[in-house]
């Protein structure tokens, strides 16, 4: 007779889900590479923005190169994310895809829907605001999928 009453097959707690939700050791390693590239992208973006805003004349034609520099790290982040997704634990991959679907869908709905709101009198928004909604939807989608498969 096998006792399965008190084992771990119950729903995982939120803390257990968060701890286990980042996949295998290889997934966490690949995630770290993605995070590292993203931080490098953000850092170079901030530095390039500051230099181009405050010392535009000093950098001269190098300003074009400086403006393009963050994109190298952005492409690195994108490739790191692709590698992470391709090698991810299969449930983690599904969670990520659901997150991307919700994030992309939310971003598109907000971007197109807000055009009508603007015509109705709502204040105009910058591209950054739409990116925030898209990224917020991505994170919310990941959390919802993680919770669903807990």
């Amino acid at each position, binding site marked *: 007779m096998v006792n*399965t009453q008190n*084992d*771990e097959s119950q729903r*995982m707690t939120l803390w257990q889900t968060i701890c*286990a939700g980042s996949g295998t050791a290889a997934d966490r390693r690949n995630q770290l590479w993605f995070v590292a590239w993203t931080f490098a992208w953000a850092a170079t973006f901030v530095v390039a923005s500051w230099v181009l805003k405050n010392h535009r004349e000093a950098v001269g034609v190098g300003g074009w190169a400086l403006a393009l520099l963050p994109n190298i790290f952005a492409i690195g982040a994108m490739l790191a994310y692709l590698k992470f997704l391709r090698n991810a634990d*299969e*449930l*983690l991959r599904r969670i990520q895809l659901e997150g991307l679907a919700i994030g992309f869908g939310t971003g598109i709905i907000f971007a197109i829907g807000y055009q009508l709101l603007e015509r109705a009198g709502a204040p105009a928004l910058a591209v950054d605001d739409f990116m925030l909604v898209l990224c917020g939807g991505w994170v919310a989608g990941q959390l919802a999928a993680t919770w669903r*498969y*807990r």
Partner: protein
Amino acid sequence: MKNRLRVLRAERNWTQATLAEQLDVSRQTMNAIETGKYDPALPLAFKIARLFGMTIEDVFDPDAPTS
């Protein structure tokens, strides 16, 4: 889809973490499969069946609805 993973694992006194490690998946994946919230892809289903020395049909029952 229903499966016998929980019983098979308990028969061997394996934790979900132990089983997950042997299959190279996360514990969350193992838990989701056991509770019927997630059906594994064919390669993982084969790995699970081979680990227990059974066929896929012995471990998974596609006709039984998930409780």
